[in-house]
């Protein structure tokens, strides 16, 4: 009984023990944070790479692309390991905003097929209007977009209410109401002379977002109202074509359709775009890490596509221009993707990127240039696939490609790489894995330091308690019994320290982004740069496997550190212990 009793009693009254616990807690906390962030980072890269481009990517070197891709996809999807495959075009271009003659931004333009892309990647997970839907589309029903914007409006309002609570409190109910009806009034009523420049800027940005949201919503609502009229005219045009109406008659109908389309300015499904959420100038981030949109579903943009799909002429490159209505946006979490990528329908980009099919002017049945895509993305069947699993499937595809190329020599004019996500990301993943190994080595050193620290603490405690050890032996305690007191003490120091450290680490990791924001606010220093680390947010998932290991090894550290002092206590002769000065 005395072992447990004394162990607990010593814990209560020895400042040294608290110091030991603190050491264990801090080191456990440190270990858990570094391992969790690193593992989280690697997992994030894996998820992002797979989520964006599938498990395996088939890509020819150069920009000429792959022809006969649908036939090849049909062949590879016959491989039992392959769950789905989808073509993809990657183009370059410049984005400008309708009604804003100043804004220009270079972007990467992805031509994707919806909803089939959702079967190959996690594209649907990051959508705004169609969040998590199994079958995302460019032809989103406008009422869905309106409903989403209404929810978003409430979110924006909540941010304004949070950030400008003091200013709102001074307003009459009518004025307060007016603030949320118009971005202009919001800025007018809430601006105060004493406000900081940062706060004024925030208000300007929020009111601008609020104004744009109103405008986008009105456009979508108008388009909905005139949708019936437009559909009737389109039917009429189709019928006119069928019965062979005159060109003038058809032109007349086309003009009427264009008039309405121009008036409501919502382009049809082929000319809709999903923006990456994070394109510079089209969004901003609040201090709390919320991304606020300036442009949203309902707004129109222009894309000037640099046509890379055909040989350039000696006169230089002429961009192909497309008008698009934003219908959704996508947040992949990968900063380099979200700040650069816009997604448009595959067929539309195929045309704009000059990858369309070209037939002989003399014989329209003769294809001179087959239509092409930039890449094929493949999803492999199964969960938790390892790299060797994926490489096996990639090898099967490679074999199939060899055969395919013999039958279709024009399928690619250059070498084709068939690589797993990991091979493509090797430059990123390998150094990270090496860094993680380095961190584990550092952690092992920390662990040894903890053992030594606990040893020193317990050696001191045992020395201080020499006479008490003598008393315990005088009243009949055995050597191992006395050792048990100190071993139990060490284990409890390790246990409490590591539980506290794990909890601390867990809280820290969960709030790591808020902590970083706070550090950036107070000290003006940001550890995690979005550009450098690719992701918007620091990974904040605790690696529980590592946590259990760290927890167990810290208890072991406590035991190990206390072991030698405990043995010393066990071997003490009672008389010598009692005489100790």
């Amino acid at each position, binding site marked *: *009984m*005395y072992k447990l009793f004394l162990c607990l*009693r010593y814990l209560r009254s020895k400042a040294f023990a608290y110091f030991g616990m603190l050491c264990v807690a801090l080191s456990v906390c440190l270990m858990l944070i570094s391992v969790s962030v690193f593992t989280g980072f690697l997992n994030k890269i894996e998820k992002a790479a797979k989520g964006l481009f599938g498990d395996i990517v088939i890509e020819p070197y150069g920009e000429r692309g792959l022809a006969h891709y649908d036939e090849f996809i049909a062949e590879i999807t016959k491989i039992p390991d392959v769950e789905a495959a989808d073509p993809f075009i990657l183009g370059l271009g410049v984005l400008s905003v309708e009604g804003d003659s100043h804004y220009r931004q270079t972007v990467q333009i992805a031509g994707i097929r919806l909803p089939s892309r959702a079967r190959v990647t996690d594209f649907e997970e990051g959508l705004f209007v169609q969040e998590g839907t199994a079958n995302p589309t460019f032809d989103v029903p406008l009422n869905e977009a309106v409903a989403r914007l209404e929810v978003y409006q409430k979110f924006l309002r909540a941010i304004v209410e949070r950030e400008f609570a003091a200013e709102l409190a001074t307003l009459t109910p009518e004025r307060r109401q007016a603030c949320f009806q118009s971005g202009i009034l919001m800025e007018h009523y809430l601006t105060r002379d004493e406000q900081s420049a940062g706060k004024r800027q925030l208000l300007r940005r929020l009111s601008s977002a609020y104004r744009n949201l109103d405008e986008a919503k009105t456009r979508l609502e108008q388009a909905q109202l005139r949708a019936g009229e437009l559909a009737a005219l389109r039917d009429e045009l189709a019928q006119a074509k069928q019965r062979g109406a005159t060109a003038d008659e058809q032109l007349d109908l086309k003009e009427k359709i264009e008039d309405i389309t121009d008036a409501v300015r919502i382009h049809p499904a082929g000319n809709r775009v999903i923006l990456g959420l994070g394109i510079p100038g089209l969004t901003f981030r609040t201090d709390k890490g919320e991304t606020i949109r300036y442009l949203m579903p309902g707004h129109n943009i222009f894309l000037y596509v640099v046509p890379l799909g055909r040989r350039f002429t000696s006169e230089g490159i002429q961009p192909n221009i497309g008008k698009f209505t934003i219908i959704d946006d996508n947040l992949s979490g990968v900063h380099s993707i979200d700040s650069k990528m816009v997604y448009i329908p595959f067929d539309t980009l195929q045309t704009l990127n000059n990858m369309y099919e070209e037939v002989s002017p003399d014989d329209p049945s003769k294809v001179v240039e087959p239509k092409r895509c930039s890449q094929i993305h493949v999803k492999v069947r199964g969960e938790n696939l390892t790299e060797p699993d994926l490489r096996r499937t990639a090898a099967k595809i490679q074999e199939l490609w060899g055969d395919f190329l013999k039958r279709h020599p024009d399928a690619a004019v250059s070498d084709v790489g068939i690589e797993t996500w990991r091979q493509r990301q090797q430059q990123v993943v390998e150094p990270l894995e090496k860094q993680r190994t380095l961190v584990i080595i550092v952690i092992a050193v920390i662990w040894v330091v903890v053992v030594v620290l606990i040893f020193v603490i317990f050696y001191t405690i045992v020395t201080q308690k020499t*006479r008490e050890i003598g008393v315990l*032996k*005088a*009243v*009949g305690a*055995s050597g191992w019994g006395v050792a048990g007191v100190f071993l139990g003490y060490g284990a409890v120091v390790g246990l409490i320290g590591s539980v506290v450290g794990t909890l601390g680490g867990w809280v820290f990791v969960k709030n790591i982004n808020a902590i970083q924001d706070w550090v950036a606010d107070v000290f003006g220093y940001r550890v995690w740069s979005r550009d450098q680390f690719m992701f918007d947010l620091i990974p904040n998932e605790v690696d529980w496997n590592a946590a259990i290991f760290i927890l167990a090894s810290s208890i072991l550290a406590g035991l190990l550190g206390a072991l030698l002092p405990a043995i010393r206590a066990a071997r003490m002769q009672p008389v010598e212990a*009692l005489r100790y000065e």
Partner: protein
Amino acid sequence: MSKHREKTTTETTPTLPEGLVSARDLHKTYRMGKVSLEVLRGVSFDVQPGEFITIYGHSGSGKSTLLHLLGLLDEPTSGQVFLEQTDTSSFSRNHRNAVRNRDVGFVFQFYYLLPELTVLENTLLPAMVEHSTLAWPGQNKALRQRAEELLAELGLGDRMKHRPKELSGGERQRTAIARALVNQPKLLLADEPTGNLDSKTGKKIIDVLLRLHRNHKQTILMVTHDEELAQQVGRSLYLTDGKLVK
């Protein structure tokens, strides 16, 4: 010890000493490097059950060493210690621990109370050593009652929840006596119990020991350097140059 005694009863021969505790030709030599210090040079005597014996002698005469040998805290260089006719040199380490726990109670000059524990907890320490964690809940109530009664008898009824640092010297020594008695030992060994106390308080402690001897027939062996004190109790022995002189 009682268990051991039962086991060895059949081995007992008439030549064995008959005291509760007996020393036979005890020698103890300490070696410090090349120098040897012979502290005890053949000490023999018996303590009968219910006796109160004092051993007095000057500082460094080997009184405490003798007490430690009799209480199985230390082993003699040569000679034997018998407990109830059993030669203790044959005891295993665990058996020696059990004897110290059950049959012997120690009172030290400097009390040696555990500072983290209250008076009651200090008193219960030998009982906690005796019972395992699993057995403790079943015994806790009775043992606690025994400790409380003992403390009340020693005048510490209102001090049970106090820490040693909150007590006077006399109170500390009485707590140490309670601790020594909680397991109802056959033999109480007191090593200069008044040596760290003023004479008035020291006398009170001696009164406590005398009362225990009188009322409970407690066998007590006390060492002291105070000859006057030694004369106050039944039998006193004088230890000088490592030998006993009556």
